């Protein structure tokens, strides 16, 4: 194996990194994993849905709202960075899907349209849910939150009853799309050992064995080179007869540097997430009422449906348009086509996406975190009044800036590595010619290909800095 000609299924990303699989692999190989985590998570989740549907209708007093939007939603991106899609392995929806499948599952193959358009369905549902949250009320309305979760339950039960494996998780879950992108920047990976797999005749990792089912996410660990669809369920660890599976730590974002087959829809989701972070920030800022008033005057209507939708379209649409624009500029050098350039460099936004998501929700976790305790006590009839803040606003703001700065650094470096790995660089195709002129041309080409995207990343960072500079309102 050489750097430029990797063997199919090999892992050029961590081959020099000492493995640290024993502890983690032991956990994943244990017969109680992941069930021992899935069961309590499912029970807690069921209780959360109960509280959202039957508990106090005021979000400030609802334990379900506090658990979902003050604790779980802020912690999710942190889990993705540290442990990849581990949450998906213990997700209560996945547990429910497995249970339904076990009892009444028809195990039909996944329809072709889902395989082809699933990520677009995920993109669309993410956008729709964000829009509906503001127009109809989901996060700040316990009943709305309950409705969303129950709708997902219906989808999960339907998918588990009809299709094989975890079709919902792989092709329909909006959070799955998000986690797929985020986990690519994660610090943990599960991979097979190509040399061991080369002689394997059973493919138990995919097909399953008497020890464990096959991969629920339709992945073939032998050739899997991405975290995007690995939920660390441990089935392959248990079923592999050759002990080929390894679980290693790695440098966060490293996978993003070497995506061999960039997918346009995944990059599109990355920029959509950025737009969503903008929308969520803007609507919680102190100047938001002024924006609404200006739109009301412009449109001649006070309908929030209209004014918010206009804001939403602009906040979502502009980042997408600008990424196209900067991709077009970059393509002048890379010459691989605007769509391909978009697809390749869109992944570079994921670290900044993560940072923005974390930073936004960090505010809710740290400025309203005690609400989790207060609402829990409230269920037993006691009322505790007082600030729900764990940290003061100024400290939280500094943490937000640090996160955004880290995200920017991660995105810029990722973009640099993507530009460096450009296989369509015409200079690179003449790599046998070692003259200084061609080397300089290659460097110049990569730099000019990188520059527009670097400018875009810095621009998005500045917007994020500004949005976190303005005071943010509470959720609870």
């Amino acid at each position, binding site marked *: 194996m050489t750097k430029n000609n990797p063997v199919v299924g090999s892992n050029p990303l961590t081959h020099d990194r000492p493995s640290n699989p024993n502890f983690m692999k032991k956990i994943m190989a244990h017969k109680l994993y992941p069930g021992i985590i899935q069961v309590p998570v499912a029970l807690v989740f069921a209780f959360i849905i109960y509280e959202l*549907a*039957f508990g*106090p*209708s*005021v979000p*400030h*007093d609802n334990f379900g709202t506090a658990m979902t939007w003050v604790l779980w939603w802020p912690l999710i991106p942190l889990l993705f960075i540290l442990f990849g899609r581990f949450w998906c392995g213990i997700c209560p929806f996945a547990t429910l899907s497995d249970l*339904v499948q076990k*009892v*009444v*599952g*028809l195990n*039909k193959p996944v329809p072709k349209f889902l395989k082809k358009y699933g990520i677009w369905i995920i993109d669309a549902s993410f956008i729709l849910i964000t829009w509906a949250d503001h*127009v*109809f*009320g989901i996060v*700040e*309305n316990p*009943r*709305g939150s*309950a*409705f969303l979760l*129950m*709708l997902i*339950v*219906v*989808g999960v*039960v*339907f998918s588990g*009853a*009809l299709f094989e494996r975890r079709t919902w998780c792989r092709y329909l879950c909006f959070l799955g799309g998000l986690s797929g992108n985020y986990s690519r920047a994660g610090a943990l990976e599960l991979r097979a050992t190509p040399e061991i797999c080369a002689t394997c005749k059973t493919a138990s990792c995919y097909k399953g064995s008497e020890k464990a089912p096959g991969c629920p996410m339709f992945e073939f660990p032998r050739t899997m080179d991405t975290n995007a669809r690995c939920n660390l369920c441990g089935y392959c660890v248990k079923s592999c007869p050759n002990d080929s599976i390894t679980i290693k730590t790695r440098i966060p974002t490293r996978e993003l540097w070497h995506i061999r087959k960039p997918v346009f829809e995944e990059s599109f989701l990355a920029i959509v997430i950025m737009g969503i972070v903008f929308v969520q920030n803007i609507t919680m800022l*102190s100047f938001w009422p002024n924006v609404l008033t200006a739109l009301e005057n412009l449109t001649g209507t006070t309908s*929030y*449906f209209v004014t*918010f939708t206009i804001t939403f379209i602009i906040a979502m649409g502009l980042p997408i348009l600008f990424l196209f624009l900067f991709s077009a500029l970059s393509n002048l050098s890379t010459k691989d086509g605007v769509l391909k350039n978009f697809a390749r460099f869109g992944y570079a936004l994921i670290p900044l996406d993560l940072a923005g998501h974390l930073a936004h929700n960090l505010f809710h976790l740290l400025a309203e975190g005690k609400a989790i305790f207060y609402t829990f006590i409230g269920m037993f009839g006691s009322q505790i009044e007082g600030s729900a803040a764990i940290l003061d606003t100024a400290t939280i703001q500094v943490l937000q800036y640090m996160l955004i700065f880290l995200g920017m650094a991660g995105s810029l470096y990722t973009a640099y590595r993507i530009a460096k790995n450009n296989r369509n660089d015409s200079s690179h195709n003449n790599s046998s010619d070692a003259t200084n002129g061609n080397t300089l041309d290659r460097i110049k080409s990569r730099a000019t290909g990188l520059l527009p995207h670097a400018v875009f990343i810095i621009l998005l960072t500045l917007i994020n800095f500004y949005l976190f500079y303005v005071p943010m309102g509470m959720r609870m």
Partner: protein
Amino acid sequence: MNTFKSNKKMHLFLSVMLSFTMLLLFSGLAFASSQEETMAGMNMSNYSIQLSNPDKITQGDNDFTVTVTKDGQPVDGLAITLSAEMDSSDTSMHMSHSSNDVVTQTLTATGTGTGEYSGKLNLSSEGQWLLTVHFLDQQQTFDVTAEKSGPNLIVIASFVGVILLIVLVAALVKKRTPKEV
């Protein structure tokens, strides 16, 4: 032939499920809570008062915001109280307490230069309430209706029903589908 019948059942199953899901989506708008509703008060001595509240005022705690402006400019620094009294003209059968119950809450300013004051008021029962804003020598009354704050049992039952239906139909189809040899 068996494959054809199985496909036909599958299509029927999918169609039924899709229909119920659409029904749920639309019925779920019953859960919907749109943004704040604002009621404007009459001008009194050049003061203008707006009362903002959640679109759905319910029995129990509700957050209210009063915005006071004078000659178009927000007025800060006022001592504002908001009181709520059950409308004695309400002949709803749901009234379970004396119509003389009055709850009063002092509102706190939400910021500087906004003229906004907010606070939480507990409306002890569903029905018609009179909310009165007091400050200086002024007062303004608004009519509101407090609805029941409990869960929407119809929507919840619909979800449970759809889930059970999916499981039941899948179980029936599975039972009737011949097993592959």
